[in-house]
């Protein structure tokens, strides 16, 4: 619907409307709680369920992951690549565990599918990078969350 133009000279000047608008701006500026943060100094507290940067949980230095491939199976973005292998202390472990972070859509399905409580999405949301980033296994094994 088109805005109706009110008749009369004063109305055609729009002065009253401009002042009204300014009043709303000033009211919000002076008396309302700020919605923005001064980012690098101030940090927002996200809920524990926030899905940020990935990590693989390890217990006593041994990764929980057994390379069962359920996360790459369920991943809708197909961003997880695992190569399984065998070693002395663990029958099956991921030799290679890569997450293409630019393909990842942070849906958290991998976390949900994991039978071994291994892959987790942490609270970290500062993930900007200059170039395409693939998270390698060593990087993922840093315990950056407490899930």
């Amino acid at each position: 619907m088109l805005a109706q133009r009110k008749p009369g000279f004063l109305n055609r000047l729009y002065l009253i409307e401009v002042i009204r608008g300014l009043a709303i701006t000033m009211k919000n500026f002076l008396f309302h709680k700020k919605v923005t943060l001064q980012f690098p100094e101030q940090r927002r507290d996200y809920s524990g369920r926030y899905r940020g940067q990935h990590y693989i949980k390890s217990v006593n230095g041994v990764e929980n992951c057994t390379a069962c491939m359920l996360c790459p199976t369920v991943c809708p973005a197909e961003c997880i690549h695992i190569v399984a292998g065998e070693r002395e202390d663990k029958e099956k472990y991921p030799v290679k565990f890569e997450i293409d972070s630019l393909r990842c859509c942070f849906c958290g399905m991998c976390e949900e599918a994991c039978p071994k409580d291994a892959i987790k999405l942490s609270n970290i949301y500062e993930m900007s990078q200059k170039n395409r980033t693939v998270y390698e296994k060593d990087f993922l094994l840093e315990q950056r969350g407490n899930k």
Partner: protein
Amino acid sequence: MPKCFIDGKEVEFNPGENLVKVAKRAGVEIPVFCYHPGLSVVAQCRMCYVEVEKMPKLQTACSTMAAEGMVVKTQSEAVKKGRQGTMEFLLLNHPLDCPICDKAGECDLQDNSFGHGSATMRHGEERRTYVDVDMGPVIQKNMNRCIHCTRCIRFGDEIAGIHEMVAIKRGNNIDITTIDGKQLKTEYAGNYSDICPTGSLTLKDFRFKKRAWMLKKTATVCEGCSKGCNMEVQHEGNVIYRCIPRENLEINKFWMCDEGRFNYRYTQDEARVVDPKLRGPEGPKTAAWQDVIATVESKIRNGEVLFLVGTDLTNEELSAIREASTALRSGIQIRTFGTPGVTRTTEDGPADNILKMKSKTSNLNGAEKLGLEPLTGDARAETVIVFRGGRAGIPKIEAKWTAGVGVFTREESSGFDSVLPGLAFTEKEGTITNHSGVEQRLARAVRPKGTCKPVSEILMSLLNIKSKAGQA
């Protein structure tokens, strides 16, 4: 034909058929572990319980023969409870290591537990564990997962003809192992992994390579010998991970030998020539396809030319070569080669009393039916072109100039002046005729490696050059 009723459905049966088979025909799947259609019936897993009217207790469907007018219920409360109880017993000692297990995704125990078991368990005691013996290069054993169906014992005894697996000790301490812990000797060991309903016996070759559900499956035929066993090529991302037998009661039943099972390896061998080569002063060098084709064309234009064709090629390729040889010029001789000592179907025969045949190439019968003559003695000509599918044993060649068309390793083609890489049996379509005259279809599972081309395309390019030269 006599009739019986399964879940209210009237089904005809042949006398002597058991209820699992009859029910399958009626569209009712009865869960089984120890029963296998290719093996004898022992009825010891107790999973296939059905209720038969006028019989006081639940019956095992695998050992109960259908009878006239029999009324069988497979979905009654008593049956469901019986199966659930059986499942609970079978899982008492089964470790929950499906994430590690290679069988996961195609596991009978998983499927039946999901379909007929209970979601909770009442048992909290420690599970028994075993130390596993090495079973040789084919099979990896994990006794912890075993449910003692004894399919493997019966397979060795009845099919492979060597009783090498036994059940030692009894009761809770039962151990299914080889006699004296020796390695498996049979050449059909891969089947142990196929018939095992759990992950107790898995293929070492496939260990941790891929999960079963990720693989794409292509139904094709084995080209390991003239038997023509039906098999399934399982691949993902243009890489073949394993081959398993397909059921064909007329040819291979449910089985397949290890040679055929692992035959696919040569198709993705590092040493396979996948780009056209021409011999230069310093040995074979990669060249452009048109240069190689032009060189071959100029070599076969004059002189005595012999086409050596492998009996591992498909009927289509063989007949294309025959047609092209007359179209290219008159006087080109064609001789087949394959397994040394087995040049005709009359010399072919069973190599053992299970599946293997003497001819190690798949299409000896097809080549003979096309009227191609086998090579006798060495190949002697001015120019020899070898067409080969990948398995035929290359005979001794005495020629001024030799070229190979098909699948060769670098070593095999080291004496050749040129190689025109062709397609392996997993990369092409075609038909092969087995020893008894059954024509079967090869299916294309993966894309060709490198710049490999089909034989028909290579022959067409040769003919094109010739017709252009004729016009000029």
